């Protein structure tokens, strides 16, 4: 980042690649090009119930993106803290899909292996998809077990009292029901994984050179 500041208008190779990856993920969002018209009013940061725990405010995410510093965004914990409650998105005066943009950033970070151990959103997501692949339906106890296997089994001890309480109330099922023809269901999942989303789902004009500072793009 420092080097790009030294030479204004020139992006590092790495930054260009990140930018390309992010735009690739962002273009599936209908209306994503509105990120260009951000007013920097801060309604998103003010509305966010979790901004107190963030290191970069939602408003700053967009500012950093336009300034050509995706690297800092992906290193921040903001994108992993977002609980996707969509308050920012509904309140944005110019209609920027802030939450969906953060989803795109998450996918970029996962693709470029930016996630850190402290914010194990990715581990939970992986455990979740594995669970669904196995039975077609989700079982909370299996999900938690797989999640703890990934993030550290010692963590599960603090959940023991809660687990027991749930069990005695009959709310913890150890065995989950299955989709009848699980093999076919898996085939559907496998086949869809290879699919690419159509580029222009709605009218999107989202070109790398049309975003932010043209000379930087």
């Amino acid at each position: 980042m420092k080097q790009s500041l030294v030479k204004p208008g020139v992006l590092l190779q790495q930054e260009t690649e990140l930018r390309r990856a992010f735009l690739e993920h962002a273009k599936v969002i209908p209306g994503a090009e509105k990120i260009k018209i951000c007013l920097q009013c801060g309604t998103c940061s003010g509305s966010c119930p979790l901004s107190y725990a963030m290191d970069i405010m939602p408003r700053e995410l967009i500012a950093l993106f336009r300034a050509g510093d995706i690297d800092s965004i992906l290193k921040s914990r903001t994108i992993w803290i977002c609980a996707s409650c969509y308050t920012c998105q509904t309140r944005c005066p110019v209609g920027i899909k802030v939450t969906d943009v953060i989803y795109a950033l998450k996918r970029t970070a996962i693709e470029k292996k930016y996630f850190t151990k402290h914010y194990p959103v990715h581990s939970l997501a992986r455990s979740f998809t594995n669970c669904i692949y196995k039975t077609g339906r989700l079982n909370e106890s299996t999900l938690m077990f797989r999640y703890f296997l990934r993030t550290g089994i010692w963590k599960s001890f603090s959940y023991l009292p809660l687990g027991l309480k749930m069990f005695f109330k009959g709310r913890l099922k150890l065995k989950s029901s299955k989709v009848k023809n699980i093999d076919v269901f898996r085939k559907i999942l496998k086949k869809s994984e290879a699919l690419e989303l159509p580029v222009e789902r709605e009218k999107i004009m989202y070109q790398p050179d049309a975003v932010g500072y043209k000379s930087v793009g």
Partner: protein
Amino acid sequence: MKFTYYPGCSLHSAHLGYDISCKAVFEELGFELEELNDWNCCGATIYMSVSEVTALACAARNLALAEKQNRDLVAPCSSCYTILNKANRYLKNSPDLREKVNDCLKEEGLEYEGRVKIRHPLEVLINDIGTELIKLKVKKPLDGLKIAHYYGCQIVRPEKGFDDRENPTTMETLFETLGAEEVYFPYKVRCCGGMLMTTFESAALKLSMEILESAVENGADCIATTCPLCQMNLEAYQDKINKTFDKKFEVPILFFTQLLGIAFGLSSKELGIDKNFYRCEKLSEIEKQLPIQQQPISI
């Protein structure tokens, strides 16, 4: 009248109370919920952050199955409701995407044309069944019960659904007809923390604490909710919240269908209220009352 019913995973495991109370209430009103045969997980919001297309395919399989039944699909879980709606919107608006997803579904001989309507039970109760019919069925009015109406994020946001995104009032309208009292509750659409409760607990605990605190300070006897995950976060983590923030909360968190069932004269066992961690004293008193005789109304 019949509806196709999509329970979703959590209603079959940790939130059985929502499942049985929903069915019981609809049955009491003379409507049938027929479970969607061989449904699968909708993918929830979490699948979206890994792969959007697979998440859509997951949801589309359910939509294709529901389309065969030719009825509206009722999804009580907020997450299922949003995701199925989102997938439906995407597939309807983009023939290109629909074709690709249908190609995957062909493996099972399914096809989706985009005709299913996804409904939330709360909205069905108000719009299809109507408060007048509900009023006729009330056997034990919830007089004096102070309810904090908590909607959570997903049934009101991100798209404009059946109610306002900042200040929804469907539940208020519903419980007003049952005689319950509404408390001032500015946190009704505030996020409870959602899945952060597992991945980033310290941040999520504070959010849930603020919601509980607001309800308690405004004198609510219980919180009525529509979302299984919110119910879980607010109820099951209350011990941890009390310990972390030095509070003494014992707020019962009930599903709106459970409160409705009590008003219809059903027992708390039939509604799965005995599976909740905290008892609502006032609600137990109401349950013990003798049912009132409804005056037959001549039209």
